[in-house]
C-alpha cells in the first residue's frame, strides 16, 4: 500500500459490484460519511463500503482490493472507541453485520460456531435455553458484535472472574491476505503447535479477517447476589476493592462509579442510585446460594469497615437488571453533560487505584475538563470519561492532551495502555511508553508475516517506524500521531 486513497477506484468499484451486487456496495457521499467513524473521536474516509455474507465473499473482496492496491478495514457494529474500524487512509470498509448466524450450539461441550456479525447479547439470549451464555460482556454488549470483541479482545465487568474474549475463543476461521480461508485452533482447549488463534484475538483486524469463530459458552450461575454499596469517597470504595481481593474473594464483577456519573445516569434511568454519595461500588458474586450469601456478607462487612454509607443487596433479577443497566448505559448518558465525550481505557495495578484516581481528578481539574469515572475496579481497569464540546475550537486537542497524560500516569503506576478497547489509532503513539524498539520491531515482524503488503487495517496499533525497516505504512497529512 502506498499513498493515502483520496481518489476513487472505478476498477475496484466495478469489480466489487459484479462480485456482490449493487445493493451490497455503498459509495455515495452519505454512505461513506456514515462509515467514516466508530463511537470514538477519530474520523477516516472510506473509499467504498461493502456488506458481506460469507467467507467466500470476504476472500473475493480481499483479493480484489489487493489487486487494486487498496486496504481493507473490517467493521462490525461500529461501537469501538479506539478507532480500530476507522478507515484512516481510505480503503474498503467491509461490514460484517450480516454474517450473524449462530450454528452448531453444542450444549454438552458448551461451544457454538458464530459469525463475526452476531451481536454479543444476542448470542447469550439465544443460549438461554441451554443454561449458557457468552462470558465477555462489554458495556456495549447489547449492540457490539462478537467479531469486534475478538478484534479488541474485549472484556467487560465479568472478565474479572471469567477472563476476556481470548479465554472464550477456541477456533477462528480467517481470511488471509492472499484471500485463503483457513481455520486456526480447534475444539481442544490447548491447540497443538503455535497458538495462532491467540495472536489473532486482539489483533484489531490487522492480521486477517475473522469469518467464523468457535466460541466457548459459560454455564449460567446457579445463584447471584449483586451489591450496591455507597461510599463517602472514591478512596473508601477503592480501599474496599483491595480489601475484598485481599480477603481471598474473586467476585464475578467489581465496578465503581463516581458521583457525577451517578447523577447523569439517574437523570435518565431513575434507578434510585445513591446520588449524594461520593462513590458507588457494584459487587457481584455468583455460585451456589449458600456461597453467594456468605460472600455477600463478607463484602458487606469489608465495606462497612471502610465507611460504607449503605449496602443494598439486589436479590430479584429485576433489581439486578436495573443496577447493571445503569452501569452499562453510563457512557451514553454523558451527552446530558456535554455533546461529545472521550471515554478512556487504561489499567493500573489494583493497589494503585487510590493514587491513580487522585491523579485522574487532578488532570481533569488542571485541564478544566468535566471528568467522570465509571470503571472495572476489580481489575484496575480505569475508564475516565471526559465530557466536552468538540465544536469549541481547541477543546478536542485539550482533551487529547489530557488523555495522553492519563495514560502516562497509569503506566508510571505500573499499568498498561488499554484494558479492553484496543489501541487502534487512539493509542498507537503511546505504544513506546510501554514497549521498547525491540518489542515494537518484534510486533511489526508478526504483522509482516501475516500481511506483508499491509492490506489489512493499515496504520493501526503500531506507531510508524515500529519496524526497523519500515515498510512504508501510509500516514496522511493532518493525522494525529
Amino acid at each position, binding site marked *: 500500500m502506498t499513498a493515502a486513497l483520496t481518489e476513487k477506484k472505478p476498477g475496484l468499484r466495478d469489480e466489487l459490484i459484479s462480485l456482490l451486487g449493487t445493493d451490497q456496495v455503498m459509495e455515495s457521499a452519505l*454512505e461513506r460519511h*456514515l462509515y467514516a467513524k466508530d*463511537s470514538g473521536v477519530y474520523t477516516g474516509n472510506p473509499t467504498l463500503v461493502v456488506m458481506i455474507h460469507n467467507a467466500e465473499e470476504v476472500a473475493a473482496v480481499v483479493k480484489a482490493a489487493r489487486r487494486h492496491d487498496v486496504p481493507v478495514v473490517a467493521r462490525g457494529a461500529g461501537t469501538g472507541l479506539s478507532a480500530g474500524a476507522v478507515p484512516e487512509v481510505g480503503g474498503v470498509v467491509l*461490514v460484517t*453485520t*450480516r454474517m450473524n448466524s449462530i450454528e452448531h450450539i453444542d450444549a454438552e461441550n458448551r461451544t457454538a460456531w458464530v459469525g463475526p456479525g452476531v451481536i454479543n447479547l*444476542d448470542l447469550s439470549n439465544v443460549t438461554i435455553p441451554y443454561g449458557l451464555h457468552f462470558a465477555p460482556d462489554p458495556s456495549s454488549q447489547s*449492540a457490539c458484535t462478537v467479531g469486534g470483541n475478538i478484534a479488541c479482545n474485549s472484556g467487560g465487568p465479568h472478565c474479572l472472574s471469567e477472563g476476556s474474549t481470548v479465554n472464550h475463543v477456541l477456533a477462528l476461521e480467517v481470511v488471509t491476505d492472499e484471500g485463503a480461508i483457513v481455520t486456526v485452533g480447534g475444539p481442544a482447549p490447548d491447540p497443538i503447535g503455535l497458538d495462532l488463534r491467540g495472536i489473532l484475538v486482539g489483533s484489531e483486524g490487522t492480521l486477517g479477517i475473522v469469518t467464523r469463530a468457535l466460541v466457548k459458552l459459560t454455564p449460567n450461575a446457579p445463584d447471584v447476589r449483586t451489591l450496591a454499596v455507597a461510599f463517602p469517597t472514591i478512596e473508601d470504595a477503592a480501599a474496599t476493592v483491595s480489601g475484598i481481593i485481599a480477603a481471598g474473594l474473586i467476585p464475578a464483577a467489581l465496578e465503581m462509579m463516581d458521583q457525577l456519573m451517578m447523577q447523569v445516569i439517574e437523570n435518565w434511568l431513575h434507578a434510585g442510585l445513591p446520588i449524594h454519595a461520593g462513590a458507588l461500588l457494584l459487587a457481584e458474586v455468583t455460585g451456589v446460594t449458600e456461597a453467594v450469601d456468605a460472600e455477600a456478607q463478607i463484602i458487606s462487612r469489608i465495606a462497612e469497615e471502610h465507611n460504607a454509607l449503605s449496602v443494598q443487596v439486589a436479590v430479584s433479577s429485576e433489581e439486578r437488571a436495573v443496577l447493571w443497566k445503569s452501569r452499562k448505559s*453510563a457512557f*451514553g448518558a454523558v451527552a446530558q453533560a456535554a455533546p461529545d465525550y472521550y471515554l478512556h481505557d487504561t489499567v493500573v495495578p489494583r493497589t494503585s487505584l487510590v493514587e491513580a484516581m487522585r491523579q485522574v481528578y487532578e488532570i481533569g481539574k488542571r485541564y478544566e475538563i468535566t471528568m467522570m469515572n465509571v470503571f472495572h475496579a476489580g481489575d484496575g481497569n480505569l475508564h475516565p470519561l471526559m465530557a466536552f464540546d468538540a465544536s469549541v475550537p481547541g477543546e478536542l486537542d485539550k482533551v487529547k492532551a489530557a488523555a495522553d497524560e492519563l495514560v502516562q500516569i497509569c503506566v508510571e503506576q505500573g499499568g498498561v495502555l488499554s484494558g479492553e478497547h484496543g489501541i487502534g489509532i487512539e493509542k498507537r503513539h503511546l505504544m513506546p511508553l510501554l514497549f521498547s524498539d525491540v518489542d515494537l520491531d518484534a510486533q511489526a515482524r508478526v504483522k509482516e508475516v501475516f500481511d506483508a503488503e499491509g492490506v489489512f487495517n493499515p496504520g493501526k496499533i503500531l506507531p510508524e517506524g515500529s519496524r526497523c525497516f519500515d515498510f512504508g505504512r501510509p500516514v496522511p497529512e493532518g493525522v494525529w500521531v
Partner: protein
Amino acid sequence: MGYQTPYAPTRTELSNCIQCGLCLPHCPTFRLTGKETDSPRGRLTAMSAVLDGIIEIDDTFEETLSFCLGCRACEPVCPSMVPYGRTLEGARAEIAAQRGGVARRFRAWITVSWLGSRAMMNSITFATALVQRCGLARVAPSRFRTGLGGLRRIRWKTPSLQGKRFEPEGAPVATVGFLVGCIMGPWFGEVHQASISLLVRAGYRVVVPPGQTCCGALAAHDGAADGASRMASHNVKAFGDVDYVVADAAGCSAHLKDYAHWVPPDEMGNWQVKDINELIAEAIEGGRLPRSTRRRGGAALQHPCHLRNAQRITDQPRVILEAAGYDPSDIDPMCCGAAGFYSILRPETSAHLGKNKVKEIRQTESTVVASANPGCEMQLRSHLGEGYQVLHPVELYAQALEEDSETTA
C-alpha cells in the same frame, strides 16, 4: 444548502447523539439490513451532516429517512435521550420542502385535506364499505390489500360524536375532551363507544368538542409540516378549557403529547394529554372501575410503538386486560410494520415485520389479541387471518363488564 424550514432538526437535538450505537439492535430496519444508513445512529449522523453542510439532501438521504418506520424504538434505549421522533419529522419536513414531488404532494393532500375533512372521510368511508361489500379488496393492488384485509366491517355511515357531551352519575372527577380523530370515528366506532362509556362510568365528564379535526400525526410523520401545524392549532382552539384531552388511538395520543412542537407556546391549552389506557388503568387501580371475577383465558398483548416507545406506556394495557379477566402475555416490542402509510409505501418490509409479529402471537396460543392502535390492529388482523379476535384493550374490558352484568342480571 443545509436546512431551510423552521421544522428542521436543530443542533441541540442532534448533538445529543454521541454515536454510542446502543440503539442499533432495537431498530427494525437495522436488524433487516445491518446497514448504518438504516440505523437511528446513521440517520441522526446523516441529519447532522446536512446541518453541517457535509452532504446535500439527495436521493440517498431521502431513502435513509423514508425507510425508517418511525417506530421510535431507539428512544427508550437512548441514554442520551435524543428526541429521535422529533428530528425525523423535522428532516422529513425538510425533504418535502426541498424536493417536492407529485407523489409527496398527493400524500400531503390525503393526510391534510382528506383526513382533516369530515365530508371527505364520509365519502371515503362509503367507498370503502362498498369495496368491502363487493369483495373488491381481493382484487385491489397488493400494496392496499393488507390494509383493506385488516379493516373491521365498515358501516356505510357513522354519525359523528362531535358536539356531544356525556355526564357521569354524581360530581365529575374531571372533564375529558375526547378526540374523535379521522378514521377512528367511522372505522373504529366501537373503540370510541367503549372508551366513552368507561370514562363516564369512571366518573369523568366527557365532552367531544365540535370543530375538532384529525390530530395531524400522519401529516407530521410524512413531512406535511405546514398542514400538521395547522391541524394542531385548530385542535388546540377546539379543545379549549378541559382537564384532559384523551385519544384512544396510540398514534393520536402520542402526537397530541408532541403538540408543543407544532403550536406556539402562547396558544397551547392548559390541559394534559392522556392515552385512554392511562385513565382507564388509573380508574381500575383507584377502585372507580371494577375488576371482572370471571377468568377468560390468555390474551396476546401487542405494544404499539407509539404507546410503548413514544409514551412509555406498557403497564396500563396489562392492568386493563387483567381487570377484564384475561391473562395477558406480552409480544416482543419490535414494530409490527404497519407504521401509518408504510404498509402501502413499502409493502415488502411491512409484510416481513407483520409476519414476524404474527408468528409470535401464534406462539402464545391465544386467539384474543389486544392492540391499542388502529394501524397495528389492521396489520395484525390482516396477517393473522381467520380465527383471531383483534381488539383494543378497552373494548375487551368493556365487553367483559357487559358480559358480567348480563350474567348477574
